[in-house]
């Protein structure tokens, strides 16, 4: 029962149905959800994360690795997300951003710094720990955002059009990096996008919304 399962998920706003989805994503697999803007793609992700605004109502269940997480607070769900913008915390250094995601279980300043350094080295950013995130290039920011999320050891990864702001060359590169890392860690991935190329690159099933 590993993986992410959406069981009869239905989201309504003021009684009006918005999204309905039944899905099962196995570890290392990608499900692409496509649809025009306004079709409720981001709302779907909020529902899985547990950050749905109070004006929405949701029925159905979310299962992650055999546990039902529908009622859990967002911080306890271990569902990672990457948005269109990197949303690096501007008041923390690059290393600080990564350390924010690192679980408390990694104890000791030196051990935490070592994990951060290793994560940066893994994506070719060795020595960037003390940098101001605002000084990074778009591709570098995307890599930091990904590693920050992976350091938090999520059990699933949600992608909210994370490649759409990158230019064509960078786009393929970042996309490949994200999918490869997710596959390597055996994460079920839910990608929402309006770009067929993203969905094609993901290589999994595609669901149309709206």
């Amino acid at each position, binding site marked *: 029962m590993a993986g992410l399962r959406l069981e009869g998920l239905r989201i309504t706003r003021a009684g009006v149905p918005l999204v309905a989805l039944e899905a099962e994503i196995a570890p290392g697999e990608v499900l692409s959800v496509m649809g025009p803007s306004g079709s409720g793609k981001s709302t779907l992700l909020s529902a899985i*994360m547990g950050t749905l605004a109070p004006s929405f109502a949701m029925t159905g269940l979310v299962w992650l690795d055999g546990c039902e997480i529908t009622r859990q607070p967002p911080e306890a769900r271990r569902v990672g997300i990457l948005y269109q913008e990197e*949303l690096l915390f501007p008041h923390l250094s690059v290393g600080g951003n990564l350390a*924010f995601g690192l679980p408390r279980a990694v104890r000791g300043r030196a051990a935490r710094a070592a994990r951060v350094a290793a994560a940066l080295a893994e994506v070719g950013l060795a020595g960037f720990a003390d940098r101001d995130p*605002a*000084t990074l290039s778009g591709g570098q920011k995307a890599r930091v955002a990904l590693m920050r999320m992976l350091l938090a050891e999520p059990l699933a990864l949600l992608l909210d059009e994370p490649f759409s702001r990158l230019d064509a060359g960078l786009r393929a590169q970042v996309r490949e990096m994200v999918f490869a890392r997710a596959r390597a860690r055996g994460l079920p991935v839910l990608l929402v996008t309006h770009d067929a190329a993203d969905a094609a690159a993901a290589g999994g099933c595609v669901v149309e919304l709206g």
Partner: protein
Amino acid sequence: MRPLRGAPLLTLLVLLGPVTAGLVGTLAPALGVFPALGGRALSLAPMAALAAWPGLPGAVMLSVGVGLAATVVSLAIVVLFVAGWQGTRAMAGLEQALAPLLSVPHAAAAFGLAFLIAPSGWIARALSPWATGWERPPDLLIVQDPLGLAMVAGLVVKEVPFLLLMTLAALPQVRPAQRMGVARALGYGPVTGWLKAVFPCVYAQIRLPVYAVLAYSMSVVDVAIILGPGTPPPLSVQVVRWMADPDLTLRFQAAAGAVLQLALVIGALGLWRLGEVVLGRLGRVWAEAGARRQGDGVLRLAGLGLAMLATGAVIAGLAGLGLWSVAGLWPFPEAWPETVSARSWLRHGPGLLAPGLETLWIAGAATALALALVLACLEAEHRFGLVPGARSLWLLYLPLLVPQVAFLPGLQGFALMLGVDMGRGAVILGHLVFVLPYVFLSLAAPWRAWDMRYASVAAALGAGRGRVFRQVRLPMLLAPVLTAAAVGFAVSVGQYLPTLLIGGGRVQTLTTEAVALAAGGDRRAIAVTALAQTLVGMAGFALALAAPRILWANRRGLRAG
């Protein structure tokens, strides 16, 4: 987090509790009920005594006239200026000066203005004797003139920055650039087009601040003591005089006056609302009549000139205070003092240490409490998905709409009845009533505009709501939080009546000291005290601007916003 859920209610209580209690405590003695002073039955005697006061018609006329005039003039200056100069460099320049201008206490600005326009003031000196022929100060009643014109001017120079700030905050929501693009393309001049296409929607947003200006200008006490006429004074000043009288039976009369003041403010607000409706109708007719340019060039220049005059008066006034504070011998009509020395500071400075510390204590505590309550409210709004309606904005403005002089005497009356000693703690709570709305108003917009996805990312990284608040949202919003704190601090520093009435005359701040000096006319003492008051208020803004720059010196992403 259960306690957080109660934050909005607690805030409302802190805000409206004193106002309501104070109003009841004022109304009762106005109707003859004040057991501590022997008033045990309803009676119209206090009202009759008030009506028998020969100065009443004059005091009422002053209150209403000064209030309406100051509001109309302030609003007109702001509207003309913004209409003519929206999006220009002149506007950006004035925006820069807004924060320091706003932090200048009313009393200090009034003293500065008095030092400028008095017969022996800087303007007369600059023109004498070569232009005026005056070898000694002319015998003219410019400051404290019977019509209250000096008082109107003193209010206008402080209300223009306030209304300008409120207008600039409201502007982006009505997308003025697009509207003006359409209006200009249809052949409208900049001012005419702005007045017809943008102003109606902006006004709908700044209505409450305008009401607050009207209520404040009608009932202000410190500015009236410094710049207003003395016999009769505006009604609010007379109420305070009766309150301070050793003859305690005059408290009944004072309460009756306070109730009348409240009625006058309500009446004037009603009149203003009526004016809004009538002008709105006429404005629609005017807009539909299609005139493209109506004196645009002249109006544009007038807007700039008046706005510059208003801000220039505050700055020149402060400069005048600065000069007087270091002036040695300075005979009329010399424009500059003959000698300059630190003597006034050395003489009056040490005596200001104690009231200065008291000011810091009160302002610091009131601001800290206000900030804690506002942050709790905003966080509760976020966590529980509360949607504040238009009514909550009205409640927030209520302490700014009910005249201070109408409810503070009531609070003092309660203290007298209960035999409670109203010390610093009570004064802090009194200041909180006025500090809180300003802190809320200045923090709410940037707090709510924060990108909520940062919270989602942090939650996905395993951070609970408390950690998101402390480690992500608060640090990212440090600059607006500190700015709001500085606004609250400056508001507290400038408070006169709450300190005087709640403190029962025993709590002395720089503001009560400065206003107390008004009657004496010792210019050097006034200058030193008013400047000390201004410096304390501005220090808060300086800190609020400097701290994020130092803390986030290495964080480019936080310096733009």
